[in-house]
């Protein structure tokens, strides 16, 4: 009896769950049958492909070019997650966990010039409210690391509200980003990929 009432008490408030006036009905079906997302867009069968690593989540997966509109390329993974790049610079992700919703980023030419600059990231918090983060960034020449031999190997160190993120770029003499490691979000971490 003692054990039973203790267990009951433990559950009583927790399972307040189901109460309309202490007596009602909680659907549990969603837990079992939560519909799988139907993908509006799908990964093309072929075309330019990159392999993307998300550092915090420790996952690695292929993405293919879905569309190019002006200087923006949209990449898509097999499950429909997407990433947008402008001249190789990541400006948005969708489906990476916490996404980079939009961003104001430097061009490769600005990075190569070595000047300090601003970077602005927009992301959603857990309540779906837009947050804006303004970074002040400096560029420095980098050494070492696992990357191709290119004209410019740079780091972009950015600080906002006491948080520091460091992006890394391998940029060739034609100002193409050949390989990079770029910050996405606290949840996804950095995204690492090489140009196709």
């Amino acid at each position: 009896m003692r054990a039973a009432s203790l267990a009951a008490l433990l559950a009583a408030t927790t399972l307040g769950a189901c109460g309309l006036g202490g007596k009602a009905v909680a659907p549990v079906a969603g837990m079992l049958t939560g519909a799988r997302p139907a993908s509006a867009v799908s990964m093309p069968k072929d075309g330019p492909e990159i392999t993307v690593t998300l550092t915090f989540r420790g996952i690695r997966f292929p993405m293919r070019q879905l569309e190019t509109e002006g200087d923006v390329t949209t990449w898509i993974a097999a499950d429909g997650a997407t990433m947008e790049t402008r001249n190789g610079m990541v400006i948005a992700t969708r489906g990476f966990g916490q996404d980079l919703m939009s961003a104001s980023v430097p061009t490769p030419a600005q990075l190569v010039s070595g000047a300090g600059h601003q970077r602005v990231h927009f992301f959603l918090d857990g309540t779906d409210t837009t947050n804006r983060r303004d970074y002040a960034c400096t560029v420095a020449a980098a050494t070492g690391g696992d990357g191709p031999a290119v004209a410019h190997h740079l780091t972009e160190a950015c600080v906002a509200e006491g948080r520091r993120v460091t992006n890394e770029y391998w940029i060739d003499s034609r100002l193409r980003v050949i390989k990079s490691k770029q910050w996405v979000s606290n949840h996804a971490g950095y995204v690492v990929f090489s140009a196709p």
Partner: protein
Amino acid sequence: MEFPKRVQRLRSGLLLGAAFALAALPGQAEMRPTLSFSGVTGLIDMPTGESQSDGVLSITTAHFGPVSRTTLSFQITPRLSGSFRYMGIRNWDDVIANPYETYYDRSFDLRYQILDETRYLPSVTIGLQDFIGTGMMQAEYIAATKTFGDKLKVTAGLGWGRLGSYQSIGSAGTRPPVVIGEGGTAHTGQWFKGDIAPFAGIEWQITPKLGFKAEYSSDAYEIESEEYGTFERASPYNFGLEYQATDVLRLGAYYLYGSEFGVSAQFVLDPYKRPTGGPLIPGPRPVKERPARGGEAWSEAWVTDGSQQASYRDGLARALRADRVTLETVAFTANSAEVRIRVPAQENAAQVIGRTARAMANTLPASVETFRIVPLRNGIALSRVEMRRSDLEDLDHAAGQDGLMWSRISVGDAADPQTGALMSPGLYPRFNWGVTPYVRTSLYDPDNPLRADVGVRLSASYDIAPGIVLSGAVSKKIAGNLDSSDRVSDSVLPHVRSDGNLYDREGDPAIEHLTAAWYARPADNLYSRVTVGYLERMFGGVSAELLWKRVDSPFALGVEINYVKQRDYDQMFGFRDYDVVTGHISGYYSFGKGYTAQLDVGRYLAGDYGATLSLDREFANGWSVGAFATFTDVSFEDFGEGSFDKGIRLRIPFNWMLGRPTDKVYSPTIRPITRDGGARLSVDGRLYDSVRGYHQGSLDDMWGRFWR
């Protein structure tokens, strides 16, 4: 090239496996505020001066010796928090003969943090424990907590009432004795009166996951220990170790009062921290830019060709289906398109609008520049969101795109019927059905505080025409013990709710509801509903509602009138001989930042007249936490235990938890006790909640999802 293997790895890896990945996040450096045995921010049995992070919802279940407490707490604002506690004390009949082996009680707390911690000053919180209830746990306190370095917190405080009962150092007047009555009344006369005693303690974070707590308690446990002899309070010192098992769960083991071992589990949910980081749904289709103006693609000839229009309509309907949006009608001119869409019940409204706009941009001819999107629920138009296609094209990759887009759209009323619209074929009539499991519980009965049934529910709906819906649900119990309650209601009012156990026992199977409903838009800013039939488990009849709500107004006004008859306990087709006219005038106000109030004034099911005040805090992600109280002309004495009707309501959408689209919602209403006074009819499809999700105050809060 072979793909399937990598594809599979990705499926489990990227979109669906995020919850797993959370575990790999590095531990947080700062010491998070933890919870006490009473489920408030605190040490072991004593409170501290800190608060939880804004919006945090926690459930703490803690047990030592004969004492068990389970507490639901919510950080209402960054400074204010509230708690509801259910408590049991075993061995209650060991020394003093009485009918209860275990004494059960409920209590509510409020705390307010008056000072934030600074470099030199501690955080300071003032608290009222069991301020409205039987008064058994009643105490007031002021507690101060200072952090030293990043591993040590020291707390000291002063307590009154229970927390002033051990080794008092002074007194503030005389505290009137607690009259343990029906409960439910505030004991203002006792607050901060009588003996004052100090308490203190430390919390030391040994490793990022492991914490140590030690405290000196000022609670003498006079009733539990000296009077009823349920345990021996041999010492004021308590010690414990707590382990942060996951981001959500913290476990503790303790040695209390020199005689008893204890355990606790703290579940902490933070609406600002999605378990999956964000919604794990595929990205949207990029907005397709139109070719340069003037070419063949810009021809307007299509608008005079019925078959071309129908083919654009069908292409758009196909594109929308992937996002669970149903196209009901579309009205074209050469330069504009207005779509009316049936929206998924729990999907983020801004995202639904955004995805619909993209589908339009990607399927409609180039000459269509103005998009008007009218979301529908139960066949009625909720609002009209109007935008320019060129803005969509301009901003698809722009930084700060959501704020820019919000400033370029307009949201208006859409009460006027659409003219010249093409309807999608095969939408009406439409039959839907489903079988789902259910759990039904009965809480806080002193004979057994938790009873539950599980079973299956067959539900079906039949849409005859836009706004006209037949629906019903039948449930059949599979297992459970709800029928074991033989408590006879002692209510002196008509037994409109207190015979619930009879409905549980005899309603197997039960017709839960069987109704015909008609929803309409009688005029601008007006919404209406008429529902006829078996409206809920205990009542059937007719219910009519009219709501006035402007799309841009924080204020809304509603009127509802019902004539209902009480149903037979077996919940088949028969009625009992109690009938009543019940109804309310309701005012709704949104203060901004998600804080809302609702005031209902009218006549309740037992024929009593009065008012209900509800206060809720809502988040753009669909979360909401609130409390309500009803006062009617039924005296506290006639009402019985609890004195008046009150409770807490929560709402957590499953899509927030899982990151995937689902319309399931966890939305309990927790009442400490259900009596007959202040009881309202429960009818499906009430207008306010189904309408305002697509109105301005709500849409702009969540507008960031427009581009998701």
